């Protein structure tokens, strides 16, 4: 192969890749399904069940996006991605959207050239200890052995926290959640640290959860949210406003069960705009007028999705906390549909 031909091929490949990212929404419509990057298996947030059906808090957001685009929440293909491959898969166009408990950080937004379009879960790093250790605050953990997953931001946060408080610790490195659980219950470490949501789900699987406590300190900010590529603004808007539609629905009391009834009886102009009864909100996004209605009808509003997957009625028993609506003291706040 001569050099000109080689360069020509490369240019053509780069060009076609460039064209591809110009219109992700059009590509998705042509393909007939959304490719959604998800976790290889995280309790409550995203995993296939024993039939291969995907469920979870992050998964339901993908389904809502599929419902918004196609009016059918099943038109989504879940691509399981590991921590190592997730960002490359998004950048290369293997997936259109990444909803995989990924923390919004400065360098991921700027250097990796992604857009975090919303925060669907405010998480933070916490500690779990055995009750009989007699510790009530993470600052009393001087000299403790701590189980920590390697290669994560939590590892760096841990070092920062102990340094800032001028205390020492011995790390016990573990590869994943399962190994951490095993080491921790076997007594190989005094404390286990990971995201608070992960601690809650780990504690739920222990035979004697009452013997373990989660310490009150949250030592980091972990805003988790859906990610799209830089420069893919039209598609980013679709994901962002689908998410905001779910939030607005909770704020306005629209649920999966009563959405049809609300649609016929409502006098609230914002609900009318949201459900596509007035104005042409859908058209501005390049979608049908009823896009938000379809998204809400898929698995319910934000609160319903939360409760069904990770809320107090599930074994994971996560409280809403920071993820309550702004009207109830949380941080979840949707701009107006106008």
């Amino acid at each position, binding site marked *: 192969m001569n050099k000109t031909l080689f360069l020509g091929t*490369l240019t053509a*490949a780069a060009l*076609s*890749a460039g064209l*591809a990212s110009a219109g992700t929404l059009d*590509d998705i419509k042509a393909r007939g399904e959304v490719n959604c990057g998800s*976790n*290889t*298996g*995280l*309790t*409550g947030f*995203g*995993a*296939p*069940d*024993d*039939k*291969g059906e995907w469920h979870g808090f992050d998964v339901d957001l993908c389904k809502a996006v599929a419902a918004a685009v196609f009016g059918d929440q099943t038109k989504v*293909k879940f*691509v*399981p*991605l*590991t921590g*190592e*491959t997730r960002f*490359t*898969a998004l950048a*290369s*166009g*293997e997936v259109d959207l990444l909803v995989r408990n990924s923390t919004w950080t400065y360098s991921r937004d700027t250097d990796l050239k992604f857009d975090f379009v919303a925060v669907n879960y405010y998480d933070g790093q916490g500690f779990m200890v055995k009750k009989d250790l007699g510790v009530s605050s993470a600052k009393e953990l001087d000299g403790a052995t701590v189980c920590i997953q390697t290669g994560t931001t939590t590892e760096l946060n841990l070092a920062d926290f102990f340094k800032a408080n001028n205390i020492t610790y011995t790390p016990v490195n573990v590869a*994943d*959640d*399962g*190994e951490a*659980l*095993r080491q921790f219950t076997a007594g190989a470490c005094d404390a286990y640290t990971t995201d608070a949501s992960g601690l809650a*789900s*780990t504690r*739920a*699987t*222990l*035979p004697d959860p009452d013997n373990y406590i989660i310490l009150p300190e949250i030592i980091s900010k972990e805003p988790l949210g859906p990610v799209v590529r830089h420069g893919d603004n039209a598609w980013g808007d679709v994901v962002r406003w689908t998410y905001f539609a779910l939030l607005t629905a909770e704020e306005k009391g629209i649920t999966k069960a009563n959405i049809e009834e609300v649609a016929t009886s409502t006098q609230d102009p914002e609900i009318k705009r949201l459900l596509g009864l007035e104005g042409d909100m859908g058209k501005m996004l390049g979608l049908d007028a009823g896009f938000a209605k379809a998204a809400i009808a898929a698995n319910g509003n934000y609160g319903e999705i939360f409760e069904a997957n990770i809320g107090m009625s*599930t*074994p*994971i028993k996560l409280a809403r906390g920071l993820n309550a609506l702004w009207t109830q003291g949380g941080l979840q706040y949707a701009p107006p549909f106008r």
Partner: protein
Amino acid sequence: MTAYVRKQMLEPSPPPASQQGVIGWMRENLFSGWVNSILTLAAIYVLYEFLSLGLPWLWHGVWVADSHLQCLEIIAERFGPDASGACWAVIRERWGQYLFGFYPTEEWWRPILCFGLMLVALVAPLFADDSKNAQWIIAPTSALTLVLLGGAGAPLLVMGIAVAVFVLAAWASDRPVKLLVLTGVYPFVAVWLLWGGPLSGPVLAVGGFVILWAVVKLFSGRLGVPLSAGIGIVAAFLWWTVIEPRLTASLPHDLLALAPVESENFGGFLLAFIIGVSSIGMALPLGILLALGRRSDLFIVNKLSVGFIEFVRGVPLITMLFTASLLLQYFLPPQVQFETILRVIILVTFFSAAYIAEVIRGGLAGLPKGQQEAADALGLDYWQAQRLIILPQALKISIPGIVNVFIGLFKDTTLVSFVSLMDPLRGVTAIVRADIDWKAAYWEPYLFVAAIFFVACFGMSRYALYLEARLKTDHR
């Protein structure tokens, strides 16, 4: 006075108790000196500690439970609060995922039939002239496959076809070479069975190979093997890219069609075997060609082979897998949907072909130069000499190395979990542990997966020993 003359021989007295029986064996093998005695006692202590932990754990195993917590409750109830035990219930609940991934349950008979046919198809190349061992493989394989097919609810027609194939194989097993036809057809049947779709797909794909074979057969006398193979490959390529799509479009879509199954539903050992078997099958011929290429006097062939081998051996497998799953997408237009599983198979094949090429080059180097010279003196051309004289000897020397590469390759298939395929070790286990009921199951999935891998790898290893013994012609 008569001298005492013994008329009868005395019975030989038995050796002292310390020299024979169990005690003698122990004195000789376990306590033959103070160093060995200490080592023996230490080993016994370690073994005791290990077994005193492991055996009760296995003995307390629970097979029926709804969750890991319930397992622990049952164990505590039966054996006391401090007892530990295995929770095999997780395997009982999820074994289907470990074996088939998310392959639809009502279609499980397809991979089962595929596996049974694979063993039968392997008989011809593995036991070419050994009808006794061929029958030893075919008989139990047939019985087991039929039982499993029945259990998986295969259609009666399929059972009938399977019985016919197995009876045919048993009938032909007096000369296993006759089964080579089955081996040749098998890859296409397997692809059709596993992925589904109309039968015309694999039949037309075979057409390309038939063309290749016919061209080589027709022209190799006049043009030589390499040139005619080149023409054949071009012709076959034309068939696949130009003629076949048109033929496919003109044929009805539901002609003998099986329900299509998407690649992303493949997982567990089904995936490990698909990647492992197809890579092994393609890597061996490719490796042989590369090894011959590396020893060739032709400048371009030689340099290309050396470059390929050295490049591939210099790059870690993980890097190649990442390239396969992620970077290729950068260079392909988004309309091209190129299955990850296929990309992985191709790159794993390249990877092991490079290693096999070096193993075989070692075998080639081990042959005396006189073998090649003798072939030349007989007037054999290059390919005849390789096929009849050089390769049979070189491959025989290389068997342990080749099998080593194969076993490594088969176990390396678990690395595909890094590119998000559902391998049995990490991929499926992550999914199972994401279920809150089984989140705490730790050893059981690993032991289950390890047991199956052990059976497969041990089988390969035993076959290699058998083959070495069978091909042994020297008098050492």
